[in-house]
């Protein structure tokens, strides 16, 4: 576990030693607020809740999170430092977990830094703060899902552009699986149980449940399983590459 923690610490510091952290946080905060106020009409709606803010998170993450995850392994492969990392006395899962948790903590920090919008809404009215907290939890969980997918895909290549594009595509599929228009396309020719299955595999179904303020164990389990499965696949990719 110490090994995973050492990797986590190094990675997390790494974000702030390069412009990555600052660029990411600034772009994220500007876009999240612009989407909430400019596109979601948070102010004009006259309702004291943050749903116009959280609604856009999946789409924001679709592009921003792969930009963060694409470098996790591809950069190490490109620079050769992966040879150093993988010859230290670390289990592959420790390196995978350390890197993932550092990226996740960093994303959680960026999401938390949107707190002025929470202060604003509390100033404007009397929102259900429990629901807002749930929205934040859902948002962070979903970012974790995106990151785990991206980390796994990054492990297979030394090209960050490829890692980015693949991650956006896979995350888009996972995201779109929960949208009604996608489900309608399937329901025409698939039995309802399969359509429900597809819907339940999507990010959106689970994210929307949580962001409405209902933290259901199943939704948490969903993200937990998704993250676990992706990180496991990530270690498999590393060992396949090792024998390649």
């Amino acid at each position: 576990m110490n090994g995973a923690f050492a990797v986590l610490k190094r990675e997390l510091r790494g974000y702030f030693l390069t412009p990555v952290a600052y660029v990411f946080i600034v772009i994220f905060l500007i876009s999240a607020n612009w989407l909430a106020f400019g596109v979601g009409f948070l102010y004009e709606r006259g309702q004291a809740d943050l749903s116009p803010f959280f609604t856009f998170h999946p789409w924001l993450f679709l592009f921003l999170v792969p930009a963060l995850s694409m470098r996790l392994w591809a950069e190490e492969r490109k620079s050769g430092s992966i040879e150093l990392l993988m010859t230290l006395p670390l289990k592959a899962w420790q390196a995978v977990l350390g890197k993932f948790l550092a990226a996740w903590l960093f994303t959680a920090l960026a999401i938390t830094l949107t707190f002025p919008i929470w202060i604003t809404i509390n100033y404007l009215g009397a929102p259900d703060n429990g629901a807002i907290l749930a929205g934040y939890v859902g948002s962070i969980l979903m970012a974790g899902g995106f990151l785990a997918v991206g980390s796994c895909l990054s492990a297979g290549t030394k090209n960050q552009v490829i890692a980015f594009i693949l991650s956006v595509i896979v995350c888009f599929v996972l995201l779109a699986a929960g949208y009604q228009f996608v489900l309608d396309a399937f329901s025409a020719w698939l039995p309802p149980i399969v359509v429900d299955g597809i819907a339940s595999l999507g990010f959106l179904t689970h994210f929307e449940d949580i962001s409405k303020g209902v933290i259901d164990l199943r939704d948490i389990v969903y993200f937990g399983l998704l993250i676990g499965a992706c990180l496991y696949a990530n270690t498999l990719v590393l060992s396949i590459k090792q024998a390649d």
Partner: protein
Amino acid sequence: MINCKGLTKQYGPLRAVDDLSFCVEPGEVLGFLGPNGAGKTTTMRIIAGFITPTAGSVSVCGYDVESQSIQVKSRIGYLPEGAPCYPEMTPLSFLRFVADVRGIQGSKRASRLDEVIGQLHLESILEQNIDTLSKGFKRRVGLAQALLHDPDVLILDEPTDGLDPNQKFDVRQLIRSMSANKIVVISTHALEEVSAVCNRALIIARGRILADDTPEGLEQKSRFHNAVTIKLKNAAETRAVNSAVTALGEVASTEIDIDAGRLTAFPAPNQRPLNAISQLAAQENWDLAELHLESGRLDEVFRTVTGGAST
């Protein structure tokens, strides 16, 4: 002890390492020699556990590299080819990271850090970003990382590449001073390095072992071994001297390097013509600029053994 048995690594149609078997004992400093693409780096990567072999096995200190990789990796200090590092870090934070991963804690951590920083003279650049360092400093940071846990086994892929002559001398001293009870495996293109630090040399090409000997043993394979080179102050006399030297029973043949004005006399089988030639020189009153015994030339052995081949 490192024990490699039947190591084979196949990259698509290319067989980078081909049924390689050898043992290295503590106290040995093994030099890997070979043309580019001979399989040196691949072999070292397999021993260090970075890649898995297609066939064959490696054990280090009794542990199997594939099934007991953590035990193996904690006993090895490894400098990968090109000494990759994390460019955004400083040498100090990088070495602290390696110490954390290796579980070196407390006062041991501080003393080990001080020791390797001193051994590799990193004091002046500890707080500078690694990507701004010169090639020589980067290499030394990589070496410091490999020495940090005072490992029983050192695998160093081209440890002195990119260093200036003084730094090369320092690093070779360092390797020699540590080698008494360790296993050291280095790869190098610098043949003088083999004579300077190694007590055993493996020449490999196309993934196979072509020679396995001490550096002195390899030098003895050279046709220059026990040859005598003469240079006269007056180059015009070289031809006369040549015929006198050729007439000696101890000399099999001679070669004249016109440009350098040197005459080299190669020994007849099991002969050392040095005494005969120096007596002759005294008798005949040759006006000598140089007279020396050749110990054998590694570069020539290297070319002969590898067939002048680069793959």
